């Protein structure tokens, strides 16, 4: 449903050109779960924002259901890398921010459900600045989920979460993906997470930001963190991160 073809994106930083994305090709099927990993600054967030319709590419086309993406649409939701909670809305209002045109009662129910889901019951009336970093990130996840969009773009959504909360959130996202058949594109730095969640893992390289490899996670066996498939996929992904000479040293540490 999502077709990206020959995407280029450059930024001007102090007169110098920074190539954020170069020649990106990617087809995402409906209901697929894609994870993206790559070096810091390689253009992952930029790619997500272009898909969301918040930025425009310099070159290339990107279509959703065969229609050019020219701007944001309610079919695509996004959780930003920074939480972007509106400081003047309470957590409850922030979570319900994008919910429009539905019954007030229904809206309240949905918001409460999602607050519970991200374990923020009791903080509905707090303002963003009264939350810890991880709590704010969870509120942002709730805001992204509550709208139930067809495509959900998640930019390092669990980065500020502790191990336990993270596992719980991962499970919730998987559950929603299975139940709602949402197409998910998730950026992460945690390779375990990328394998655990993704059906395909997109590995990107930095400056210019290109797609180095797309690694499928086929058998459900591979989702098992103890399995050899898991370990072998992890190795394949990591391999792309390191230069030959480093690899030997790092391999062992994994």
């Amino acid at each position: 449903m999502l077709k990206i073809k020959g995407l280029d994106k450059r930024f001007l930083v102090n007169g110098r050109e920074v190539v954020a994305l170069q020649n990106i090709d990617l087809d995402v099927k409906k209901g697929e779960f894609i994870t993206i990993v790559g070096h810091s600054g390689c253009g992952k967030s930029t790619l997500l924002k272009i898909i969301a319709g918040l930025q425009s590419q310099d070159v290339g086309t990107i279509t959703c259901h065969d229609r050019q993406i020219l701007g944001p649409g309610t079919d695509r939701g996004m959780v930003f890398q920074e939480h972007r909670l509106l400081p003047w809305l309470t957590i409850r209002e922030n979570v319900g921010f994008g919910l429009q045109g539905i019954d007030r009662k229904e809206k309240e129910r949905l918001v409460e459900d999602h607050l519970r889901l991200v374990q923020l019951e009791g903080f509905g009336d707090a303002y963003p600045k009264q939350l810890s970093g991880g709590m704010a990130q969870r509120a942002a996840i709730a805001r992204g989920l509550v709208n139930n969009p067809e495509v959900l773009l998640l930019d390092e959504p669990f980065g500020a979460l502790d191990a336990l909360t993270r596992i719980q959130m991962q499970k919730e996202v998987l559950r929603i993906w299975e139940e709602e058949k949402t197409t998910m594109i998730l950026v992460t730095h945690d390779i375990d997470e990328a394998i655990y969640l993704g059906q395909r893992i997109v590995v990107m390289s930095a400056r210019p930001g290109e797609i180095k490899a797309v690694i499928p996670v086929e058998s459900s066996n591979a989702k098992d963190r103890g399995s050899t498939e898991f370990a072998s996929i992890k190795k394949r992904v990591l391999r792309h991160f390191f230069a030959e000479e480093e690899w030997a040293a790092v391999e062992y540490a994994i």
Partner: protein
Amino acid sequence: MALFTPAILPSMDRVFKSFVEMAASGQLAEDVLVSLSRVVKGYVVAVALGVVMGTFMGMSDFLHNFFSLTLNAIRQIPILAWIPLIILWFGIGEESKIAVIVLGAYFPVLVNTISGIRQTPQGYVEVARLYRLSRWTVFRKVYLPSALPQIFVGMKLGLGISWVAVVASELIAASAGIGFRISDARSLMQADVVIVGMIVIGVLGLLMDKALSLVFHKATPWTR
């Protein structure tokens, strides 16, 4: 040079006596009520116009470019120079006095609103765009609260200028009002009355300013 000439700066004693006299005769209350009603009317119109126009100009580059040249030029032109035209368009009744106050109070509100709206962090606007909220909702939920502190500064300044403008407005055919009283007393060298007028306006303005601050405080719980 004398810093205190009783003809211009009378003793506090004398000022107090005048105040008591003016208050007792009921004249002060009448003047205050007349001017207050003008200030309130003009101020409300100025705030409404300023916030609405400022929002449009802040949110739309097209409208900004379209209007800003004219409005910026008008903004520089002295109120006193406008008075003949104001008489032409609004007559010499209440409308003309209110028009003068609007002319004075409008621009601080407008300029601050534009700036406040334009400084809304793009990150938040993007969130609203993401959800394809209507322009009105984006305004209400993103631009307005973000610009509120600065709009409020414009409203504070506008309120002060309303009181400043009331004197100019009451140079047009007025027979009551605190601004008229001050001009009248000035031409009659009644310094005590001038000072009473200044103090009354100062205190009244201060009270309204405080009231505004209170409303603002209530309206922005997240800043606490």
